[in-house]
């Protein structure tokens, strides 16, 4: 049979295209359930919350579903209240201190574990334990430790410095904040440590050998080899860590319970209080939208800045 020039080529191309389309359909088919779940669990609640923030929804009219539109009233109210700026400041302080401590201690421990150490496996296991424990249990345990009358920390302080050294860990908002930071730092170190350790182990040893030959000091090796090569690994970890910490409800909520003054709140716990203690759902929704926008801005700015640094 005589065939046209390029017939077999066209056949191959058509066959390849057909196989590619089938492959694409298969991929889409596998993605559909995930997309559906994301739509239901993420997109719909987000849109609902944004809509809610422009209405007036309180306990009295909640059941009636008769929710009047109030435009930007909720947002105006939030920005006019001094407490918003106080809790925003608390949140930024909370996030910066926690993430800085997580990175500092996590990286430090990772650098130690990246050497030859006797019993390294067991040490690593012990250091990962906080990550393995449920947050709720951790918060309750720390709450017990910080108990003002019977907690271990105050008992030790009293034994060493006398009863005047006992601190109001769970009643004074300043100390509630500090106690929560301590608990959260303890909780968050293992994640950064493991990410860092993975990154360190992927760095080619030849770089260090070359630096050794050039007479570089340990500090120079850290500054010029380790840190730059860890950046691609640490950047997403820091972004994730910052977002999680910014939105961390459990620790402050459990440590302080209902008894914390507004001064110890961060944005997300304050929004929770407004919704579930004061039953002002639309005000709380507006708060949540503001938190979302802050985090979206932060994440995109951070990634952009990292990309620009890489280009340079």
């Amino acid at each position, binding site marked *: 049979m005589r065939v046209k020039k390029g017939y077999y080529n066209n056949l191959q191309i058509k066959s390849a295209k057909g196989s590619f389309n089938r492959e694409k359909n298969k991929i889409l088919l596998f993605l559909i359930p995930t997309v559906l779940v994301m739509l239901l669990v993420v997109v719909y609640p987000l849109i609902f919350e944004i809509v809610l923030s422009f209405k*007036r*929804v*309180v*306990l*009295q*009219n*909640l*059941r*009636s579903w008769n929710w009047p539109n109030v435009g930007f009233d909720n947002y105006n109210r939030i920005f006019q209240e001094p407490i918003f700026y106080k809790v925003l400041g608390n949140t930024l302080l909370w996030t910066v201190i926690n993430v800085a401590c997580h990175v500092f201690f996590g990286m430090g421990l990772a650098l130690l574990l990246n050497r030859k150490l006797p019993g390294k496996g067991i040490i690593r296991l012990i250091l990962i334990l906080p990550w393995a424990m449920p947050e709720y249990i951790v918060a309750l345990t720390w709450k017990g430790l910080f*108990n*003002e*009358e*019977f907690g271990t920390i105050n008992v030790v302080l009293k034994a060493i410095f006398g009863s005047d050294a*006992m601190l*109001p860990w*769970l*009643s*004074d*908002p300043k100390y509630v904040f500090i106690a929560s930071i301590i608990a959260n730092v303890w909780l968050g170190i293992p994640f950064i440590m493991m990410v860092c350790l993975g990154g360190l182990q992927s760095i080619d040893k030849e770089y260090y050998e070359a630096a050794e030959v050039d007479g570089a000091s340990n500090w120079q090796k850290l500054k010029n080899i380790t840190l730059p090569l860890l950046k691609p690994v640490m950047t997403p970890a820091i972004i994730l860590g910052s977002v999680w910490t910014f939105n961390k409800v459990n620790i402050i909520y459990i440590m302080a*319970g*209902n*008894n*914390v*003054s*507004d*001064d110890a709140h961060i944005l997300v716990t304050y929004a929770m209080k*407004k919704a*579930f*203690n*004061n*039953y*002002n759902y*639309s*005000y709380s929704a507006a708060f949540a939208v503001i938190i979302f926008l802050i985090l979206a801005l932060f994440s995109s700015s951070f990634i952009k800045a990292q990309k620009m640094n890489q280009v340079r």
Partner: protein
Amino acid sequence: MKTVRRLLVFLSIILFAMTAFSGCKLLEDDDKIQIVIWEDESDSVRAVHDEIIEEFTKANPDIIVKRTHYELQDLKSNFINAAMAGHGPDLVIGPNDVVGLFQSGDLIIPTEELMGEEFFSRFSKNALDAVNINGKQYAIPDRNGNELLLFYNKELIDKPASSMEELIEQTHVLKEEGKIQYSIACRTDEPFFFFPFQSAFTGGKVFKEHTIPLEPDLDTPEMTEFARYIKKLHKDRVIPRAGDYNVAKALFEEGKAPYYINGPWAFVECDNANMDWGVTVLPTINGNPMKPSSAVKAVMVSVVIEEASEAKKEALIKYIDFLTSKESQLKLSKAHGQLPTDKEAAEEAMILDPIYEIQEAQLENSVATPPYQEMTKTWDAMRDAQMELLTGKIKPEDYGRKCQEKAIQYIKDLQG
């Protein structure tokens, strides 16, 4: 490898099936009517509720009663969420200030609609008034009191003090001897426990008179005097530096404080601690009585019942009647220690145990908690201000103003 893969697939299917079918009831339960109750009771009271449920279901085999426990804050938010969605319990048992909160959201129904007017004739009037909002009985009270009393450790105190001045002097000697740490163990994180001290200065006034909705009236010279007094007690270690319920309980049970302010629910706890304890009415301050806030605990009927079948409503009427009967109230009273609201049960209880006479005496000198939602928010406001006062964040002179500002803000939040 193939076998492992097949095994994993098989296990996944089983797991999925278990998850998918976990919500299914047993077929035999389909014929029975189910009543769901949510409550915030203590351990000992829950045990009695279970006995009552067992007795009821034995006599009514076509009815199942399920009880779920929540702490008060969770009870409030979970019930609101559930009722909003048209689900949740049929009955909620909680304190009367929560009645106002639920009523404001139309989450509970007036109980006369279900039980009829005649049903209420056996309850004491002051208990019914405590859950009466705008002329309707939004709950059925099952115990009267919730009032705070003065417990004392008989091993440290021979005769309990009748005034705070006497109490402080009495315990000062014990402190000098190194026998105790504080004079009185009490919670410092809840304004309910400071309210008796407050009432000795303010007479128990919290709201302006004749205002609907209720308007707080807390920015007063009397509140400043109270704040100065409580700050002094705190500074002089008469009351603990900081303490929740468990801390206060531990201080009393371990003998670190000879006096203890708590309610009738603590009777069973003190018995279980094998202490030689006594109870009396709260002392006076400068000749003025310390008046605790009294309340009732009540059974509320969820709005979801409006859509229920006639059979379900009949079952609910039966159960409520059984739960609030004289016999059930007497059983429950032994566990929670408070006076029954059934008139006959209350008379019988007072004859059986002299402790009820002390409660009756304290109740006569108490301030009834209004059931309105504004009261819940005022407690929240006083809690915040109290913490700031005790930690030195605000001065006593600012305490009343702070309470007032926060109460107004929280009430405004409720109204949107």
